[in-house]
């Protein structure tokens, strides 16, 4: 391995190196270090043995190899000889040149010593001369120095005496800087001798400097001077130890005054013909003033920041006030833009104030308050349009449908308009609002949620039996109020349904389209506007109102029935001569209800449409069992009667009397009629009738049968209930013999004729 590494090295070069090193190195053992372990065939090693080498060589190689080796060796030996020759020659050369150099040195050094001695001599003489000059000039020099000092002093005195003149000259040429410099230069002297020798001088110059101060102040305060001049003046004044802070305070006062001038006037801004330039000019002036201030009083930043913040805060407060007075989004945007521009301008000159952050906070307040007030006004509008119903008579009474129309419009249009307004704000690209985008979205959603919640509260408040809330609005009370109140409740019911079915989906759509992606609040809290919850609320509220309406109307019907049943003595009733008046009242009441309901609720489809034509079918439609039963003589056992009733009920499908109320005219009217008839039955059960009493009820029921069918949707149930009333009467009758059909018919016809007559007269 080692051999392999050594092989690339040229044999000759290696040998040369070894030779050279052995030549120059004093210790041959070190130079031969590498060849110590050389093999026996290494011709260069110190332990070279020629016989052995020959043996090895002869042993190893053939003749040709040996011959070749011989040639190589001969050449090598020749080379070595020349090398040695060269070395010897070179060394010789060097030796000769060294000898030459030594020879020359010897000859050069010989003249040197004499020269040196001469030089020393000359230096000695120079020194002695210089000493003599020094001693001879010493006295004079002292004198000259004294003279020079006096001269300086005199010049200073001259300066002091000249100072007043100089100052006045400076004042004339307005070189105040020089004046101040001179004065300050003279100051120490005045301080030292001002009271004695230079009194006049001092006075004169002080007078002059007072003029300077006055002029400087004038300059500082004059707005016409350039800022640089004013700043210089301030600096000079400061150098004169003048109380600059007072001046600063004064100037600040002035600045603050100017702020009141640039106070925002929103009406003016949004008045298209209004002059905005005054405000702009004012703000520019303010900005300039701030600039000047910064230069003049470099340490005044803090105060300036305060003043600027003050200005912005004031403006935002004004804007906030303005927002409360129902403004359009354009107005708000106008105001905000103006404020923002101001802020940007001020920010440029006063970066330390970080006004944009400050105003961002303030703008948040303004925008939230705008959102809030927008929803508040919307709520107010809706309430107002609703409460039109309760307006006193005298002022034209609004019909329910008009009110409903107005209210739905108020809710839907108003709601969408409000959203549109918010959208305008959102779309505005003025700097401040862009940063608030997400927040605004959140506010709008929150506001919307809150708005619907409040709206529902408001509705519930209106529907409350407690009228105090409505009285606050200064509206009518009493029977008129009561009547109208039922209408209001009905409108509320329909409005709630409308909100649930139409407004909320639309609003949700709008929200999704324009107000999504807010939620700075984080995901866990979800979006602020939860339409599902609102829908649920309004659905239940709507149902509540509908039931309340039915209940209120039904109470009136009940009252009517109660009067009807408690007044006469039914056991001593006289024979029926005509349909009782109460039927008219009952039908009237129903007519009012139908009227109200028609105005508000949508028409539903009829469940059981009548196939047969007019009222003649009435009796045939009624329960045949009952007819038969009533047709029997009174000797019939009442016990079997009851049994028959039960049987009849068994065979008849159980009629669902109390079904769920729907938002249709028919459903509401039918429910009221059903409840009324059920009450009728219950009142009947509390009485005892004689035959005439029974017949009277029979007549009345027969009469209402036809008009009732006209207005209800579930004829079967109504028929059933009407029959039930007659059955109940029969049960509570001592002698249940019905009227003969011809008489019944005659009486009914008479009544119809009478009503018709009345109608024609009244019309």
């Amino acid at each position: 391995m080692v051999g392999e590494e050594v092989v690339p090295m040229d044999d000759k070069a290696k040998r040369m190196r070894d030779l050279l090193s052995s030549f120059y190195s004093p210790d041959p053992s070190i130079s031969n270090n590498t060849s110590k372990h050389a093999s026996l065939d290494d011709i260069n090693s110190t332990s070279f043995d020629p016989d052995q080498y020959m043996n090895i060589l002869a042993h190893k190689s053939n003749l040709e190899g040996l011959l070749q080796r011989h040639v190589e060796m001969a050449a090598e030996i020749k080379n070595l000889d020349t090398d040695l020759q060269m070395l010897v020659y070179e060394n010789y050369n060097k030796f000769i040149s060294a000898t030459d150099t030594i020879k020359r040195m010897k000859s050069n050094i010989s003249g040197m010593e004499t020269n040196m001695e001469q030089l020393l001599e000359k230096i000695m003489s120079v020194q002695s001369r210089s000493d003599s000059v020094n001693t001879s000039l010493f006295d004079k020099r002292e004198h000259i120095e004294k003279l020079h000092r006096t001269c300086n002093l005199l010049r200073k005195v001259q300066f002091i005496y000249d100072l007043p003149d100089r100052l006045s000259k400076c004042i004339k040429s307005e070189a105040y800087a020089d004046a101040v410099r001179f004065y300050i230069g003279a100051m120490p002297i005045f301080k030292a001798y001002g009271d004695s020798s230079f009194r006049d001088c001092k006075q004169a110059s002080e007078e002059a400097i007072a003029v300077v101060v006055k002029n400087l102040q004038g300059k500082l305060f004059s707005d016409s001077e350039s800022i640089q001049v004013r700043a210089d003046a301030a600096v000079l004044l400061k150098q004169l130890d003048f109380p600059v802070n007072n001046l600063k305070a004064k100037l600040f006062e002035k600045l603050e005054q100017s702020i009141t001038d640039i106070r925002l006037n929103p009406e003016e801004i949004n008045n298209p013909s209004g002059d905005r330039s005054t405000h702009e000019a004012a703000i520019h002036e303010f900005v300039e003033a701030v600039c000047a201030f910064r230069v003049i009083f470099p340490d005044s930043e803090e105060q300036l920041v305060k003043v600027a913040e003050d200005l912005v805060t004031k403006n935002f407060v004004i804007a906030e006030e303005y927002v409360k007075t129902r403004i359009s989004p354009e107005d708000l945007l106008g105001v905000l833009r103006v404020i923002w521009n101001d802020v940007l301008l001020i920010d440029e000159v006063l970066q330390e104030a970080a006004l944009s952050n400050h105003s961002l906070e303030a703008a948040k307040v303004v925008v939230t308050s705008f959102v809030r007030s927008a929803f508040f006004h919307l709520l107010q509008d809706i309430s107002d349009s609703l409460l039109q119903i309760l307006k006193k008579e005298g002022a034209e009474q609004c019909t329910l449908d008009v009110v409903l129309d107005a209210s739905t419009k108020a809710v839907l249009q108003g709601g969408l308009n409000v959203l549109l307004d918010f959208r305008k704000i959102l779309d505005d690209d003025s700097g401040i609002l862009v940063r608030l985008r997400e927040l605004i979205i959140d506010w709008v959603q929150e506001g919307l949620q809150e708005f619907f919640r409040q709206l529902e509260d408001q509705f519930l408040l209106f529907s409350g039996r407690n009228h105090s809330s409505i009285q606050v609005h200064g509206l009518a009370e009493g029977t008129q109020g009561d009547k109208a109140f039922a209408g209001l409740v009905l409108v509320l019911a329909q409005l709630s349904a409308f909100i649930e079915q139409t407004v909320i989906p639309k609003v949700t759509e709008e929200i999704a389209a324009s107000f999504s992606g807010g939620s700075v609040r984080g995901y866990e809290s979800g979006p602020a506007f939860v339409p599902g919850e609102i829908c649920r609320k309004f659905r239940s509220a709507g149902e509540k109102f509908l039931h309340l309406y039915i209940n209120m109307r039904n109470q009136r019907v009940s009252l009517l029935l109660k009067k009807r049943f408690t007044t006469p003595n039914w056991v001593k009733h006289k024979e029926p001569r005509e349909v009782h008046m109460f039927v008219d009242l009952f039908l009237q009441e129903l007519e009012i209800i139908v009227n109200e309901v028609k105005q508000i609720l949508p028409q539903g489809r009829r469940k059981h449409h009548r196939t047969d034509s007019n009222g003649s079918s009435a009796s045939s439609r009624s329960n045949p069992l009952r007819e038969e039963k009533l047709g029997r003589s009174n000797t019939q056992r009442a016990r079997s009667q009851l049994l028959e009733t039960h049987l009849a009920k068994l065979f008849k499908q159980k009629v669902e009397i109390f079904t769920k109320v729907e938002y249709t005219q028919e459903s509401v009217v039918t429910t009221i009629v059903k409840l009324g008839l059920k009450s009728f039955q219950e009142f009947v059960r509390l009485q005892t009738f004689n035959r005439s009493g029974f017949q009277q009820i029979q007549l009345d029921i027969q009469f209402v049968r036809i008009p009732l069918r006209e207005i209800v949707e579930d004829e079967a149930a109504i028929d059933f209930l009407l029959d039930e009333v007659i059955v109940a009467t029969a049960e509570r009758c001592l002698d249940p013999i019905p009227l003969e059909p011809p008489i019944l018919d005659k009486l009914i016809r008479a009544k119809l004729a009478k009503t018709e007559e009345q109608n024609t007269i009244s019309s």
Partner: protein
Amino acid sequence: MQAASSGIGYGLKYQARCISDVKADTDHTSFLAGTLSLKEENEVHLIRLSSSGTELFCEGLFSHPNEIWDLVSCPFDQRIFSTVYSNGETYGAAIWQIPELYGELNSPQLERITSLDTDSGKIKCILWWPSGRHDKLISINEENLYLWNLDVSKKTAQVQSQDSAGMLHKLSGGAWDPHDVSSVAATCESYLQFWDVRTMKKTMSIECSHVCSVDYHPQKQHILVTAEHESGIHIWDLRKPKVPIQELPGHTHWTWTVKCNPEYDGMILSAGTDSTVNLWLASTNHDELTTERQVDSSARWVDPLLNTYSDYEDSIYGLTWSSREPWIFASLSYDGRVVVESVKPFISKK
């Protein structure tokens, strides 16, 4: 609804309005029911719940001369009860005694202890002294309130004192305060009026439209429950008579009667003309502050309606809890069907 099938039925022959728990019978759960038939022989049924609680049987059947509009069992003697009756034109009231050995007679006659006859008015109801053996009775007719002194052994009754309801008021029913026996509440169209029976003077009135039934809370003083035809059930605290402390929606049609459970607080039964009996759980124990808030926020309010029993064919006028087994109630619909139900599944819920 799911409990509807659990009801045990019993049929009276005729239409009927009134059923009463026989309080004095401590051995059995019994009820008295009276029929309302204008033209037939009316009957009083003594109905007993079998000890297994699965069957109702007729323990006694007595004929009664007139149709019965009100029937109350005497709280201290199971054989005595009062009725208010009518023959169609006139009204009367009487105290009856069930004859001894009635089991042996075929159709035994009731023994009339005494009649509570007054000169005028349509008598509406009889109130017994709320608990224990006492000789005082109150009868209420449309115009007046009478306090009677009853002597069962001498079979006499005398009016001790009386007071008029006032010109424009017509009384319809009432209840005797179990906590303060000197106080009686009477329903009177749009008012609930209170009398002190010691002085026989009106003490207070609560405005409450169409009130038709009233019941005192058996454990809590000052709390009472009213049923109103149109507007459901109201719970009142007499210390704050201006507004009810709670409102329950009542029934689809009129709410006819309302009864507080004698044992379980806040458990209220109501019966209505929509042929249903509703079981409510009202919280009567919250104090002033919480009540206000809970009335306000009815949205968060859990539904107080525990169950609706709707297995009836007609309006229900008669309703009573059993005082012996307070989880049992009996209801009577107009078609003469007595249904006894247990509310046990709803008690365990508490």
